[in-house]
């Protein structure tokens, strides 16, 4: 009976209910979309591993480290594997075709990144061909690259036209892994440099260190840095997570603003739904009073109003959540080049549901109070 009442009351004013549901849906959509954008920023952090350290020049990423450091790092206690690479920063055909490309030491790199899944024969082909490269599936799809295609990149940091052969396409272990990366042999870069700009050869952009014991990450990092202290290229070693966080914190101002906005949205929609509920209840005050005269207790009336409020916010919330997925997809298409991993997290959905419930309850508070405290005689006077 109660359920029947709820439904019919909610849809008595079809247009008003439809509009309120719409408003709620929009608010939930905005909330989810904003949180997804923030999560995209932290994607690198989320995907980082506790088993890896990044070693780079202490001054900034703009400066390189000598190749000779490799063996000395390997000698540090707690270090299991050492790989290295350079940020290559080239583009494909046009400057706006931006994606991450690296020159890496192939075998150690693949060993340190088990989350890149690649067919064994492709991996072997990559190892054998010095001009070979491995690209992520999303990147390959974007430019329609297939295995054995020849791809030419235009260098920025290392100028010139660089020719590669696609030897493998990798998939991320799950959808938190960036599958828009491009990596190739470090030796190809280095040998070319020795012939053209010799002074830039044998320089490494960063070292990636695999730990034998992840619990000793901080100690191992400190040990590595101690080796190179007071040399002309001092190092800064940190966990991959801290390294990725460094990038995120550079855009802190924007992130804070976005977080603030997502909260404000919820507050505003609360006001709108509360206004609607207050209006509806005010109009029907006489009816609620009649319920009272019939003997129904305040609790029942509260349940009616709360139920109606939750019904409206619930419909809006569900609609908003459903719309989030296509909207996120649209957003990803627009800014996907800057955010390789753009997905709607389960946590976002849970929070959206929680927000829906909170708004539904808060919007019902004043009307419930009003209905339970109004005197019968006064309420009846309003009818007719």
């Amino acid at each position, binding site marked *: 009976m109660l359920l029947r009442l709820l439904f019919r009351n909610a849809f008595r004013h079809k*247009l*008003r209910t439809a*509009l*309120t549901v*719409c*408003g709620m849906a*929009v*608010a939930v*959509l*905005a909330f989810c*979309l*904003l949180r997804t*954008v923030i999560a995209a920023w932290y994607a690198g952090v989320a995907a980082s591993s506790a088993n890896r350290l990044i070693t780079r020049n202490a*001054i*900034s*990423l*703009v*400066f390189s480290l000598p190749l000779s450091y490799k063996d000395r790092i390997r000698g540090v206690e707690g270090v299991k594997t050492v790989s290295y690479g350079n940020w290559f*920063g080239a583009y494909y055909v046009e*400057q706006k075709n931006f994606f991450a490309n690296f020159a890496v030491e192939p075998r150690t790199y693949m060993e340190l990144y088990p989350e890149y899944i690649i067919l064994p024969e492709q991996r072997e082909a990559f190892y054998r061909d010095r001009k070979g490269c491995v690209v992520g599936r999303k990147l390959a799809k974007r430019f329609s690259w297939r295995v054995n295609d020849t791809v030419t990149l*235009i*260098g*920025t*940091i290392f*100028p010139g036209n660089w020719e590669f052969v696609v030897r493998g396409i990798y998939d991320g272990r799950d959808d938190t892994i960036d599958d828009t990366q491009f990596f190739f042999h470090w030796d190809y870069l280095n040998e070319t440099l020795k012939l053209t700009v010799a*002074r830039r050869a044998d320089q490494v952009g960063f070292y990636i260190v695999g730990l034998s014991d992840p619990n000793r990450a901080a100690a191992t990092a400190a040990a590595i840095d101690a080796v190179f202290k007071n040399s*002309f290229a*001092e190092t800064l070693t940190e966990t991959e997570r801290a390294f990725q966080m*460094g990038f995120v*914190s*550079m*855009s*802190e*101002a*924007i992130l804070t603003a*976005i977080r603030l*906005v997502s909260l*404000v*949205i919820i507050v*505003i*929609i609360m*006001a*709108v739904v509360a*206004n*609607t509920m207050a*209006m509806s209840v005010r109009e029907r005050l006489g009816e609620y009073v009649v319920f009272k005269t019939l003997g129904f207790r305040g609790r029942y009336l509260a349940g009616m109003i709360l139920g109606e409020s939750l019904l409206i916010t619930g419909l809006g919330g569900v609609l908003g959540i459903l719309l989030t997925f296509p909207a996120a997809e649209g*957003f990803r298409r*627009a*800014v996907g080049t*800057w955010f390789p991993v753009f997905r709607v997290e389960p946590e976002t959905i849970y929070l959206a549901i929680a927000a829906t419930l909170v708004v539904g309850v808060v919007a019902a508070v004043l009307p419930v109070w009003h209905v339970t405290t109004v005197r019968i005689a006064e309420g009846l006077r309003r009818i*007719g």
Partner: protein
Amino acid sequence: MGLLFAYSFRNLLTRRLTTFLTATGMALVVFVFASMLMLADGLEKTLVETGSFDNVVVTRRSSGSEVQSGIDRLQAAIVETQPEVAIGLNGRSLLAKELVVLIVLQKRGTDAPANVVIRGISENSLALRPQVRLAAGRMPRPGSSEIVVGESVAKRFKGVEFGATMFFAMRTWTVVGIFDAGNTGFTSEIWGDVDQFMPAFRRPVYSSVIFRLRNSSEFDTLKARIESDPRLTLEARRETSYYRDQSKAMAKFLSILGLSLTIIFSVGAVVGAMITMYAAVGNRTTEIGTLRSLGFQRRTILFAFLLESLILGVIGGCAGLFFAAFLQFFTVSTTNFQTFSELAFSFTLTPTTVGKGLAFSLLMGFVGGVLPAFKASRLNIVEALRSV
């Protein structure tokens, strides 16, 4: 028609809470809309002001920004001999060869690290940038380990105040001055002697060559010659274009984000306005019937309700713009995606933005009110009078 306006306006005043809530919704949308426009304008202003139209920036071809660029001494010398380079007061070319690298500093307060631009300058560098002037102390002596720091850097980062000593690139440096660069990007930089920086950072090449054109119209000739010279792998851009290019990605991202938010919010505000106006029509059904019985035409009723909704929009719009104007006291500092370095800029409110904000709020008022106003005008007189 003053009575009509009074009618619409007073009806808004009667239901104060609802009017307030609805207007607040619209104000919020206009606030977000205006602040996005202001941010984009502020960013543009900073980057455009950072350059002089008559200056030319030469970097390595397709290097994007100075940080990625490298020009060796030979190539720099060739650029120096170009006839279009202006001659300075001292009789020598008004040209500077500079080195640009990034170092990591800790921000005040949050301790978060950020990349800061360090620029090795030569004697003409200051003359080439009229927007920059010393606010305190003096310029570094050539050949010394002295540096000057931009105001934004001094404000936001640790250990860079006037008189402080910094340690980087295996050497100690002393801050001997602070420079004021207004709204330009230079305010987020640290400057020192290029001939000291190059060995310290072990960079044997320059990042860029900057000079003043003796005659602004000669730019195209100069550009063609530099870019077709087989000895050089360089590109030349006007300083203003160079800095504008630096912000493209950032500006695009901000405008997409701002636009999406504005669209989403405006749907919410319009929905709020519609709910309010439909309720207003519902509550005043008898009144509408009375007005019609007095002989007022349908379109007058339509207009009165539409006017009410538009007034609501204007109130919201003005409130939103009013609060947005206060943003001008804030400076945003964030990392520019393209140059990878710290950039500080502020919000700029232009008359165009005010106009757009008001127009937008009117549009929202119109969209929110048009359907309820139509409903009001189409009510049947007899049924309207009959309702209580």
